[in-house]
């Protein structure tokens, strides 16, 4: 530890930290542009100058390590003059176009020019102009505004793992760009917009839409992948205008994936905003009482075993528990939440969660990826894996399609079943790597379990975990990577059929779909289908009654991410038209069915959730080990030799919301060719 005095305040900081961090520890604000906590130090903007006793010149505090007994001054005359000078230089070539700049109001340069700059410009010469660059359909560039802090270059290289941005040419002519015209091939490109301290990189869909002070900000959770990214939803007049990540070091740090960030325009399109009833084979608009009346009329008197219910990947815990209770009251146990066919064993929580935890990845020292493509299934978690790989001493074995670019080096072990069997038997060279590791982990992709031999794959993966030192009293290295934010909650609530049952069977006469995508061909011809959801897709056309539900931005809901972390999302805008929060729809239907559910407030539903599974009583994620080695049901011997198909074939359009989004359609068009190529390589 080093004792440092900052403006007379004495603080003790670890050796090796920068002067800037010491100043922050003392509660002093240091202006900066190029410095970013999660990126390497560049030290090129010179805004963070401070005075250090006995140093002849001001020093760049972000790049200067502390020394014991150092006396730092952050507000001396020398510092003020130095910062004013730096600011004047930065503004020499910066256009004064704040009134038409999308960064206006949340611009570091604007704010710091107010606080540390001169009140007028002395620069009368010509300013330089820089050609705008094309960086894909999400990031808009106005490169004349660039102050060359190189944050974007460092983000792309270090965090996203796509070294495609750079500073070309030099001096007056230096430009940030890709040099060759191309869209950045990363699923994290939206973060460039966040880290850019000026208006050089801004959001293309958000261009000229709003000013930050006009927005209402609601903290919520992203559910479009299973990471459980903490987000802030910015709305104005009942419309979502943008979504930004919130910092949560245990989950997403401060990053966010592009699909979650940019697909919200899908929330306005192709919405089910009023109930529909099928009359004479055609759907017609109806009122709530008509729709719920039709449901009650059909379900009343139907034996429970003829009724089924399926929950989709974006369903919230409140709706799931309400539907489960309603089905229970109707005498049905035919529940299903694995409409993708994944052979998940829901009998024990650690069989289906990401037990290591996202932050736990950084403590691991070996990784085996089985049939998952974390880059496309959970880009933010992939950035965390990459962070661990870059730190060194982290061998990554990969079973799946050959030649995938995961943004870090991986040891390709094989295509699929055959390699998995050898690993499970312990005879693979990678077994040695895993056994030598102290904290090995594996990631099993949910997509890999959708094959006919899914149960065998699950059992084999568990066997590998159990026999390769991954299951320890204080370490759980078995991880299942889900794809959407509602999948774990449904498993936690036991939304699965009994051993001898199935939600959709030839005997099904009535089927309740909670935002679930079920192949219409699998539904028996005469069955009565209730579709409750926010987007009408193929299966909605098959429905006899459509009950319009709320999307994740439109309800107070509980979500469980792939780790099993319980988080609460909040209502940012009201559902459109006559759509309602999902648990309330089910609660209203129960009344008409004569099976009134015993809760009519959010608190009461949440109390019921906690009763159904104690994990819902708390929030967050508790690190845990594994002492019970008994594996999930499944016969390793049934493993077939087939290779794993790429699970996420179209990252940009993986669920109903992004499929309704124009922004995502544009991304799919631009990046589609590249992704097909990735898959084929």
């Amino acid at each position: 530890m080093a004792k440092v005095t900052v403006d007379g305040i004495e603080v003790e900081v670890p050796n090796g930290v920068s002067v800037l961090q010491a100043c922050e520890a003392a509660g002093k604000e240091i202006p900066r542009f190029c410095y970013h906590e999660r990126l390497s130090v560049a030290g090129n903007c010179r805004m963070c100058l401070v005075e250090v006793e006995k140093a002849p010149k001001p020093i760049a505090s972000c790049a200067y390590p502390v020394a014991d007994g150092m006396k730092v001054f952050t507000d001396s005359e020398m510092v003020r003059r130095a910062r004013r000078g730096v600011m004047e230089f930065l503004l020499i070539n910066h256009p004064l176009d704040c009134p038409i700049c999308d960064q206006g109001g949340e611009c570091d340069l604007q704010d710091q020019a107010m606080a540390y700059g001169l009140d007028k410009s002395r620069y009368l010469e010509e300013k330089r102009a820089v050609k705008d660059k094309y960086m894909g359909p999400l990031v808009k560039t106005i490169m004349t505004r660039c102050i060359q802090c190189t944050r974007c270059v460092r983000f792309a290289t270090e965090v996203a793992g796509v070294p495609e941005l750079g500073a070309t040419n030099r001096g007056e002519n230096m430009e940030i760009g890709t040099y060759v015209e191309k869209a950045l091939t990363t699923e994290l490109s939206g973060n460039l917009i966040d880290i850019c301290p000026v208006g050089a990189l801004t959001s293309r869909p958000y261009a000229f839409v709003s000013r930050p002070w006009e927005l209402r900000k609601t903290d919520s959770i992203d559910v479009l992948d299973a990471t459980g990214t903490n987000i802030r939803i910015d709305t104005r007049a009942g419309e979502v205008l943008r979504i930004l990540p919130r910092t949560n070091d245990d989950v997403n740090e401060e990053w966010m994936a592009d699909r979650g960030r940019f697909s919200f325009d899908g929330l306005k399109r192709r919405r089910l905003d009023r109930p529909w009833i099928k009359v004479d084979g055609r759907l017609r608009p109806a009122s709530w009482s008509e729709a719920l009346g039709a449901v009650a009329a059909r379900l009343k008197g139907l034996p429970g075993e003829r009724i089924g219910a399926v929950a989709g990947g974006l369903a919230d815990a409140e709706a799931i528990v309400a539907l489960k209770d309603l089905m229970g009251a109707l005498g049905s146990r035919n529940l299903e939440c694995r409409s993708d066919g994944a052979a998940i064993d829901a009998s024990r929580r650690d069989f289906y969660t990401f037990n290591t935890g996202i932050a736990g990845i950084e403590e691991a020292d070996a990784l085996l990826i089985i049939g998952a493509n974390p880059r496309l299934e959970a880009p933010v978690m992939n950035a965390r894996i990459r962070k661990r790989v870059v730190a060194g001493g982290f061998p990554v074995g990969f079973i799946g399609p050959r030649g995938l670019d995961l943004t870090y080096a991986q040891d390709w072990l094989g295509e699929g079943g055959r390699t998995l069997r050898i690993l499970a038997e312990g005879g693979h060279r990678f077994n040695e790597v895993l056994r030598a590791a102290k904290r090995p982990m594996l990631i099993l992709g949910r997509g890999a379990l959708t094959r006919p031999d899914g149960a065998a794959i699950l059992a084999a993966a568990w066997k590998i975990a159990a026999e390769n030192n991954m299951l320890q009293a204080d370490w759980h290295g078995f991880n299942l990577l889900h794809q959407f934010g509602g999948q774990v909650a449904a498993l936690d609530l036991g939304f699965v059929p009994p051993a001898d049952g199935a939600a959709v069977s030839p005997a099904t006469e009535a089927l309740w779909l909670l935002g679930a995508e079920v192949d219409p061909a699998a539904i028996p011809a005469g069955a009565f289908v209730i579709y409750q959801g926010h987007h009408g897709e193929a299966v909605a056309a098959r429905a006899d009654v459509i009950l319009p539900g709320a999307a994740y931005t439109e309800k107070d809901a509980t979500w469980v991410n792939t780790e099993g972390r319980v988080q609460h999302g909040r209502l940012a805008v009201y559902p459109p038209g006559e759509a309602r929060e999902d648990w309330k729809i089910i609660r209203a239907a129960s009344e008409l069915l004569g099976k009134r559910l015993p809760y009519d407030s959010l608190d009461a539903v949440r109390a019921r959730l906690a009763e159904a599974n104690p994990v819902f009583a708390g929030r967050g994620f508790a690190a845990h080990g594994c002492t019970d080695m008994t594996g999930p049901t499944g016969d390793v011997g049934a493993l077939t030799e087939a290779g794993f198909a790429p699970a996420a074939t179209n990252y940009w359009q993986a669920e109903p919301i992004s499929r309704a989004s124009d922004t995502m359609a544009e991304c799919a068009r631009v990046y589609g060719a590249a992704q097909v190529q990735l898959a084929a390589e």
Partner: protein
Amino acid sequence: MVDISTAHEVAQPASFEFDAESNAAIETILKRYPPGRQASAVIPLLYVVQRQMKRQTDSAWVPLKGMDAVAARLGMAPIRVYEVASFYFMFNTKPIGRFHLQVCGTTPCWLRGSDEVFHACKDAAHVAGYGQTSEDGMFTLSEVECLGGCVNAPILQVDDDYYEDMDYERTVQLIEALRRGERPAPGSTIGRQTSAPEGGPQTLLDVPGE
């Protein structure tokens, strides 16, 4: 002058592959760096590309595919090579003429008459100005920063050779010789011995023991 044209504004060859001579040179170069530090060889390898282009097309420049080939050989991201190649003006990122006339315009050369050399280049090589190539494709004229030959200023660098103590007349003669296909010996054009004073040594004339 620095050429800030970006890659896509120049007609690029469809492919680039190192030839046998380049490969031999690369092998020698890579041995100079410890294992795992091969990326340090990026500058020498870009020169290898530029020389190979000179051999193959008679124009010493580094095309995009050549940068990609360097990146692939050194295991670097292509953008890291683009950054280096565009930073140093010694690498031509667009095609140039057969002879690259590089006039030093830094203070000592300027004081000793580099403006005359520049005008001579313009007149004799029929080049419009800095950064331009003559219509016959023979000469490209560039202004460069200090070449480190100030004692024999002004300097005109032709490709890799220094021609020193230039003036208008001698520059014109040099360019005409180049045009005829001759290659005058590089060095001082007034018969100066290396960078000794004009007319011969002035000091240490008495050799002890003589």
